[in-house]
């Protein structure tokens, strides 16, 4: 337990000590918020979709969490290259504890970034409909963060170096983001794409978060919560498994 705590704390310390990274990783979500949010606002309203900023903001928050969480997992590769990974792998604690500490720390960092983005969205005009559901929003943010920290951990454990990084971002993470309903709704999509969206774990996270902010869930609160919780538990398990197989 202490091992989980100290490794989680390490992630948090590294996070607060690198303002460049905090600010740097805000760039992408802000860009999407401004470009899409203001670019499509009138078109969305004219098409009868309502307030686009209100629709888009949970998606942008999810995006920030998605990228930061996956990145925290991929950081294993950095730790391998800079050598610190060895120090944890020879310590007399189970690999499960080590990786849980890492994933928890990564998830908290990702969530912190998500909350900063949420605040920026509110400044840009995002209105949360119900403050009663706000804790639920936090729950969804945390689950998304853990889920993708788990996925990132799989990549970080399997890859030996950063060569594969663009591959993962462009062919896995970007598609997960674009086809999650973060920037457009599933309504009126071609059937194939709608099924694609339904197979994407992030769809349920985005919908849960959006529902908690707007009180309207597309897939239903229970479905969202159940899917995300089960997948998070699964990914924590899979991430731990791959991490435990690391050899130096």
């Amino acid at each position, binding site marked *: 337990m*202490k091992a989980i705590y100290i490794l989680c704390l390490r992630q948090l310390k590294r996070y607060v000590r690198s303002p460049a990274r905090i600010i740097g990783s805000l760039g992408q979500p802000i860009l999407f918020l401004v470009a899409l949010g203001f670019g499509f606002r009138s078109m969305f309203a004219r098409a009868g979709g309502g307030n686009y900023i209100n629709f888009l903001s949970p998606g942008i928050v999810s995006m920030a969490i998605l990228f930061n969480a996956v990145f925290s997992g991929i950081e294993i590769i950095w730790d391998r290259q800079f050598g*610190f990974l060895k120090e944890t792998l020879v310590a007399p604690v189970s690999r499960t504890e080590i990786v849980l500490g890492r994933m928890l720390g990564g998830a908290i960092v990702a969530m912190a970034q998500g909350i900063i983005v949420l605040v920026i969205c509110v400044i840009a005009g995002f209105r949360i409909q119900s403050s009663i559901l706000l804790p639920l929003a936090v729950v969804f943010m945390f689950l998304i963060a853990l889920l993708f920290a788990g996925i990132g951990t799989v990549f970080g454990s399997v890859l030996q170096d950063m060569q594969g990084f663009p591959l993962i971002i462009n062919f896995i993470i970007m598609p997960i983001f674009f086809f999650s309903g973060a920037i457009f709704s599933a309504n009126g999509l071609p059937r194939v794409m709608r099924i694609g969206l339904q197979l994407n774990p992030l769809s349920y996270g985005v919908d849960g978060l959006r529902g908690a902010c707007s009180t309207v869930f597309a897939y239903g609160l229970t479905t969202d919560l159940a899917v995300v919780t089960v997948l998070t538990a699964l990914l924590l398990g899979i991430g731990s498994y791959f991490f435990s197989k690391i050899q130096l």
Partner: protein
Amino acid sequence: MNEMIVVQDLVKNYGEFCAVNHVSFSVPEGVIFGFLGPNGAGKTTTIKMLTTVLDPTSGTIRVNGHDPTREQKQVRQSFGIVFQDPSLDDELTAYENMDLHGVLYGVPRAERHQRIDMLVEFVGLAERKKDLVKTYSGGMKRRLEVARALLHRPRILCLDEPTIGLDPQTRNHIWGHIQQLSKDEGVTVFFTTHYMDEADRVASDVAVIDHGKIVSHGSPADLKQRTNCSNLEDAFIALTGHAIREEEANATDRMRMMGRAWRGSGRR
């Protein structure tokens, strides 16, 4: 005497390439054992297998009576290690690096703080202990790694070229302390080095490994006598030859391996 490290018929293959080739040796408790060999001989690979981070291809290992492939926790609790390559978190302070280590090894808080203070003092970093490690010089980082390996009072010290980058003063200071630990507390030391004078001075037992095979084993005096040399450096060269180890053989091996992998997948 109690054998702290026993290695029998240890083999490690990387694909077709054999990095450690049927190696056997043992290290009794309290002995300072020098594991010598030219670049690429298989020293670090052996240490990785002893320290549970790499599974052997075949052979058996006992560290403090435990098998590193099955009883990882007991083995890990037994040793402290200085890796050949850097292993600190640069974004943490020296103190935080030490503290994290202490927590991972279950050193109780009060003892942890007291030992950290004692050890950073010992390696001359007391003044800088609150600084981020990324602001340290190479030698200072090395000193911190040595201090960290001692923190949890391990029964065995695995030191992979612990003195690279250290000035003669620090080198003597640290070896003095380690020799004391071995004498007073029976700590077993397994180390590698490329400084033959260092090995001659501190090791009571040495093994010379070349191309993954042990070519000679005994006290430094034995080795000198066997090779008719007056110092260990000459003995080392007499045993392992003058040729500089090129990585070329390896690079081509790897190319060959890759080629095979490609062709293999092409056929499928």
